[in-house]
Structure formats: C-alpha cells, structure tokens
C-alpha cells in the first residue's frame, strides 16, 4: 500500500518515479498507531487469530477436545442441563459443557474460531480477487464489456446474499468439504461491492495523465492495470476488504445458524447459536459464549477496518494530527497536496459502506 498511496499522487508514468517508496507504509503505521481503538482492536484480532491457529494447543492445555461426549456432566432427567453452577464450569472445563452432550465448550469455542475466521478470510480474498478483476475489466474494457460486467455486478449486488447462499449450499452434495464450500459460496456471491468500487475508481484514474501517457506509449490493458492502476486501487480495496471480513463472519454464522453452513460435529459459532437458542433460560452461558465471541470478533474487526480506512485516508489523517513533532513536516507536506482524486475518496468510501 505504500506504493499505492504515492503512486496515485505522482503524475509520473510508473511507481518507480516515486521518491522514498517505503515511507507510505511507515506513514500508514504511524497513522494507525495514533488510533488507540484501532490498536486495541488489532491486538484482539491478533489474539483471535493466534487462538484459531493454535486451537489444538489451547485445548491440549485444557486437556479436552471439541467432540468427546461427557454424559456424566449433564443432568439427563432434566433434559440434559449441565451439572453444577454456571453451566458446569470447573478446572477441567473452563467454560462449562454443552447441554445434552457434555462436550467441552471452551474447546468448541476455540475450534469454532477456526471456522469463523478461516471461512471469513478465505471468502474475503475471493471476493476481492473477483471484484478487482471484474471492476478493472469493466473500467478498462470497451463499452460492451463494461455494460455487461456492470449489469452482472448490479445483479450480484441486488440479489440478497443470504438467499442465494442458502440456495447454493442446499444443492451441493454432502461430500464436499463444508468450510471450503461455505467460503466459496460467500466469495462468489459477495464480490459485487468491490467490483463497483474498483470500476468507478478505474474510470476516474483512466483520465489521469500518467495513465494516458502509459496508454499512448502503447502499453496493453493488463500492463496498465498492473503498473498504473493497481497501486492506486490498493487503498480503497484494502479498506473495503477490512470491512468485508466482519460482514463475512456474520454471514457464515448466519448460514450455520440456518443449518446450511458447516456440518456437525465441526464446531462453529453460528451452529452453537442455533442449538443454544432454546437454552437461553435453562443454560444461559451456552448461548452467551458464542454470541460474545461473535460480538467481540466482529466489533474488533470493524474497528480495525475503520482504523485502516482512516489511516489510508489523507483527509482523515490530517485530522489525526499525526506526528506533531518530528514527523510533522513530512505529513503536512503530503497531506497538503491532495488532488481531485484524494478528495473524492472519502465520498466513494462512504457510499460503498452504505451499499455493503
């Protein structure tokens, strides 16, 4: 993204013309650093990723696994409500056990993080890849191609994601690995927003001198896209992607909640919510745990995404008064030369957010 920021500001032909290309990244981190909420969110996200990656390690530490039944830990005569206070919390079961099965809730929650984060990240990568490709092709292509792709994008944006995903997930045979499938479906259904942003930005970039110059010197579409457009597109796309991740987590949870997401015995937060919803009175922690995990994750990712947006947005960055001392000069310098493009960015961002 360092190149992204600078390249778009440089009326030259290539990113190579930019002085001190590394400063963009440093600037980004500097701006992000000043936002405490974003930093806290980043820490939470890092922790969640760590937990997801090291799930077996954490459960080994607890001495449990997510699928073993413990019939002795539930009161069979009372519908299988966990024995003991607070849903059966003990030194062996840190967050208690699941009603009816006695499966360890901590282990299921930790393994559920893998599904939630993994599916959401994979889906986001897919959405960005498809969205950028379609947006660039539309923005650079002829009228016919642009019209076709734009209408296709409109359709994707207009179609309710959940309904489409439900239909797709229901028809695929059960043998297909479920988390991969869910990621694919969310990815292939939810790229419309990215494509719209990229196309709009591409069209406005196309008329800029450096792109025109590249075209005049006979570069092909792919090369122009790669060398002249992609660097400038990085900032909005990264911002958009950062906000897509929490949305995708919610979608995965909703799909699992509706019973078409990952299948048992794989744990997922959405699925835990489904089986827990009837237990809210008899075993409240069963419902609260996955709900809280989802809430914290989505909140952290959203705050982080917002921080990233702010850090990538020069107008907002100037308001942050980044580097009032030593670094002030560099910053004011950069923020003082916004061009038409820059000032337009916050708007596009806002509309994108509404549209998503």
């Amino acid at each position, binding site marked *: 993204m360092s190149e992204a920021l600078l390249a778009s500001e440089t009326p030259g032909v290539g990113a190579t013309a930019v002085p001190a290309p590394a400063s963009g990244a440093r600037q980004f981190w500097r701006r992000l650093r000043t936002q405490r909420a974003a930093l806290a969110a980043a820490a939470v996200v890092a922790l969640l990723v760590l937990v997801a990656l090291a799930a077996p390690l954490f459960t080994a530490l607890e001495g449990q696994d997510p699928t073993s*039944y413990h019939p002795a830990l539930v*009161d069979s005569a009372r*519908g299988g*409500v966990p024995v003991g206070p607070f849903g059966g919390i003990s030194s062996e079961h840190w967050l208690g056990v699941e*009603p009816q099965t006695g499966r360890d809730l901590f282990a299921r929650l930790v393994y559920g993080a893998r599904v939630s984060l993994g599916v959401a990240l994979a889906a986001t990568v897919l959405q960005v890849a498809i969205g950028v490709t379609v947006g660039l092709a539309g923005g650079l292509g002829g009228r016919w191609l642009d019209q076709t792709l734009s209408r296709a994008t409109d359709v994707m944006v207009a179609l309710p994601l959940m309904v489409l995903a439900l239909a797709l997930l229901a028809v695929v045979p059960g043998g297909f690995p479920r988390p991969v499938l869910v990621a694919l479906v969310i990815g292939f259904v939810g790229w419309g927003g990215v494509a719209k942003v990229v196309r709009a930005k591409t069209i406005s970039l196309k008329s800029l001198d450096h792109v025109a110059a590249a075209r005049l010197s006979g570069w092909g579409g792919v090369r122009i896209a790669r060398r002249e457009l992609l660097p400038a597109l990085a900032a909005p796309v990264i911002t958009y992607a950062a906000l897509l991740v929490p949305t995708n987590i919610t979608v995965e949870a909703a799909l699992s909640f509706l019973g078409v997401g990952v299948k048992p015995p794989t744990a997922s937060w959405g699925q835990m919510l489904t089986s827990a919803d009837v237990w809210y009175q008899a075993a409240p922690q069963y419902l609260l745990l996955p709900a809280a995990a989802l809430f914290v994750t989505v909140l952290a990712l959203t705050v982080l995404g917002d921080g990233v947006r702010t850090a990538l947005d020069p107008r907002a960055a100037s308001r942050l008064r980044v580097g009032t001392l030593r670094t002030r000069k560099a910053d004011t310098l950069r923020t003082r030369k916004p061009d038409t493009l820059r000032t337009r960015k916050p708007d596009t961002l806002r509309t994108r957010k509404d549209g998503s």
Partner: protein
Amino acid sequence: MRRLRRPTSAISSRTAMSRRTAAASAALVVLAAGAAACAGPEDNKNKAGGDGKPQKGGTLTVLNSDPQSDFDPARLYTSGGGNVPSLVFRTLTTRNREDGADGAKVVPDLAESLGKPSEDATVWTYTLKKGLKFEDGTPVTTKDIKYGIERSFAAELSGGAPFLRDWLIGGDKYQGPYKDKKGLDSVETPDDRTIVFRLNKPVGDFDYVATQTSFAPVPKAKDKGTKYEEHPVSTGPYKVVKNTGDGERLQLERNPHWSADTDAERKAYPDRIDVRSGLNSSVINQRLSASQGADAAAVTTDTNLGPAELAKVSGDKKLAAQVGTGHFGYTNYLAFNPKVKPFDDPKVRQAIAYAVDRTSVVNAAGGSSLAEPATTFLPNQKSFGYTEFDHFPAGASGNPEKAKELLRAAGHKDGLTITLTHSNAKNFETSPEIATALQDALKKAGITVRLQGLEDNDYEDKVHDAKDEPGLFLAHWGADWPSGGPFLAPIFDGRQIVKDGYNFNSSFLDDKAVNQEIDEINKLTDHTAAAVRWGALDKKIGAKALTVPLFHPVYKRLYGKDVKNVVISDWTGVLDVSQASVK
C-alpha cells in the same frame, strides 16, 4: 432456525402411515392431531392443578402447530381415530379412554360389542347400538358406515389409511362410490344394525383397525365429495360450527343429538372446543406455561416439551404439575442394509450393536425424561408383546472392547470406516444430534463414522428406496395401533418388500419361518395370546442384528392451569381431549 420439537406422535404416524403411499404428507398432519387421544374415567385423576370433580361447561382451547387439514373421515389418517377428529366422528370401535396400559385396549363405540370373528378371522361382524343419531337427528344405520368406508376408496378423497384397500376382498380394484355405484360387495349390511366385513386374509387385529375414521358413518344424502370436509356430519359429542382455512381454526360446539347413554368413552365436559393451529412450538409451550386468559383452559395435541423447556419447567414446581407424561408405541433405531458392505457381515452389525452408547444417545434425544433406552424393536409396552431381551449387551455406555474383538474376528484389524445417513430435520430422532452421539461412541471401538446428513424429504425418499437404500441409517417406526403386528410385519415380512416404491423392510429380510409366524399370529383374535407370540418373534428377529434399537420416546406435554381430568393412554401417549374438563 429455531429448534422445533415436532410432536413425535405426528412423526410416528407419518412413518407408519406413509407405508404404501409416499405422499402421505396430508396423512401425517392429521395424525399429529389424531395420534393424540386417549381416555379414562373421571374418577380419581384430577392430576391437573384443579380440585373438585370435573364439571360441564366452558371452552377448551387446543393450541397446535399442525392444522386439522382435510377434516373428512375418509381422508384422515389417525391412530385410533385421532384426538380432535374423535370428538366429531364415532367409529365402530374406539380406544379405551383410560390412563396408561389400560388405554391401549380397544373397546366398542358405535358397535354393541367388539367384532365377532369367524372363518379364521377373515370375516368380522358388528352390531350397532340402538338410538344412535347424526347431528341432524336422523338415525345412524350400517348403510352409512358402509358408505363411509366406500368413500375412503375414492381417489379424490386421498390420504386415509391403506389397510382396507389391502384387506377387503375386491378392495384393490374398487374405485369408490362416485365411479362405482354398485358398491363394495365385501362389506355387507344384512340389516340396519348389522355389518359384515369379508377379508382376503386373517386379520386378528381387525377391532383395532375399526377405530380409524374411515369406519365413521357418512349419510349419503349429505355427501358433497371433497367439500364434505367443510361440514362433516357429526355423530360425536361435538359438531363443526366453523372450519377456517382448511382446519387452521376449527370451532366445535355441542351436538344435541349425541347422548352419553350410547357413548361410554367420551366425557365431553366443555361446551365448546376451539382448535387453533399454525403456532410455533415454543409459542405453544410459552402460552401454556403462562396460562393467561383463555390459555389457562388450553391443551395441545401435537407439541411436546423440548429438552431445554423441560429443564426450565422441571425447576418450577407449579409448572411441573402442569406436565402430562405419556408413552406412545414408538422405536428409534439404527437400520442396516445387509446388501451394502461391510454390513453384510453379521459380526460387523453385532460390533456396532455392542459399541452403541445409549446414555449419550438418550441425552441427545432429550435426556432420560424424554427417552428410554431400547434393546428391543417392539416398544416397551405389554400390548405390543414387549419381551425383554438384550442380545448384544452394550451396557449403559457401550462395550467398545467387545466390539473391537468382533471386528478383529471379521477381519477389520485396523478398524473400519462407515457412513451413517441421517436427516437434517430437527426432530431429535433421525437428526444430527443423535448421529454425532453415535459417531463419538463408535470412535471408541475403532469405527470411524462419516455423517451423511440429508434434507428431510431427500432422506425419506432415500431410506425407503430399495435400490438406493444406504448401508446404515437412523430410522424410526411408530404403530398404527398398539399391537405387535403393525410393528413387526411391515419391517420384517419378506412379502412386504417393495422393489419399486416406498419400502419399509429395510433389511430385506425374507425368512420363510418369520413370514409363516406372522401369518399364524394374524389368525389369533385373542390379543393377549398374540402379544406373547409377537414378543417371541421380536426376540428371534433381534438375534439377527438387522437393527440396533436405540430408544423409545417419552412424551411430556404442558396443559393450562385450569385443565382437569387429564387422561393419557399408552395408545397415543398424549392427553385425551374428550376427557379434559375446564371447570
């Protein structure tokens, strides 16, 4: 998205009913309502929060999830005449409205006494009571009963039980009274009070069958074909005043021409019955536990308490007193298809039977208050001929060592990977909860279970398709009447294998000795003697390890705080509307 605990009776009925007609959906719905009746004398059972003797008067509200669709005696498919339907339609025989095991007996209703069998139980004769009247005051004759039975053969009035079509002589060819004015010769009415049925095979259980609504009289002059369901002519204590939205709301009022003198079974305390449906099961349970306004005098005939609701209710003494407990003849089991490897090897099937952990399965089904572990295919009730046995004792939580030993003997030294097919219905019977509990138990015996979860319709089609039947799947079976016959014959009679169509003999057992014994028992008209032999047959078939019985469900249902005289028979397992009082 919410976890519906479907009335198990509804499902059971479905299973039983869909026997020959894959499109039994209409039937199920009815059943839901239907399977819910039973009865008893009002004497000592004011189990509800009430005090004092039950009194006449008031309005009883029924809060249900499934509507009373196609409220026509020819189209209803019920066990024992149904719960709500039985308020309007009287039949030749009916359920004994008593608590528990006594309620699993069949007693005369329109008939003076139970049927008189002759010629090896292939001919059944009934005599009507005197003074029976329709709701308009015209007397009931056996011609009306014959006409009602003939109607149930009409293609336009689909949905009813298939038994008469299979058993009455000429029943397979008869097209119903609209196309075939001559009528069905195998139902004879020598006079207005006598009716004779001629069957193509011995049916010792015919008295049980005569409880079904197709045995209700229908006056030919009042028959409006498919529109008859809007206002069927009542013989019971209530008549239909208003039927809204094809049974979504059914309002019943007293039938002045019904007399308690001719009806020993129905108590009919309330003046009005208001049946409302289309409600979510958690809403029904919430309303019954709150018992506010009209809901204090409300019951449900199709909604059980789920495990979470039970956990909440059992912690509240007042609410716990408003819960009725019942048993319906029903078994949930693992079914093998011995045509699919490795289930062709009895040792593998036995190993699985040993490895099953019934404690965790029962917990997954809702815990020990909602399910009882099963080792027999027959339900654990005397009327079915329940004979205790456990051929492959797995103990409370499975015997993985014995299972491993059998697997080694079968040549699977390094364990085994198998697929278990289940449905994604949220019924706590064939649903993922049960499947994952089994998966965990079999893992301990070195058996890796892959789960194949199918949408409910998909699942029903696949497991009943003889050509496509999976090797191992979760199955359930409920009886049309409380006897061993409708339990064992459809599942294990080799002549009932359906090659193209809905097949219930999932193990494809075609054993001459078994078939012959089924025929022999069907000749018995003494239900007690028959029960003993059904039990022995169950034990004999059980040794073949063609199924692994898992659990029998227990019904827990809430009723409003003002409801008295709660009677729950073992025939239906649910509160009998005809016995409840609200005053």
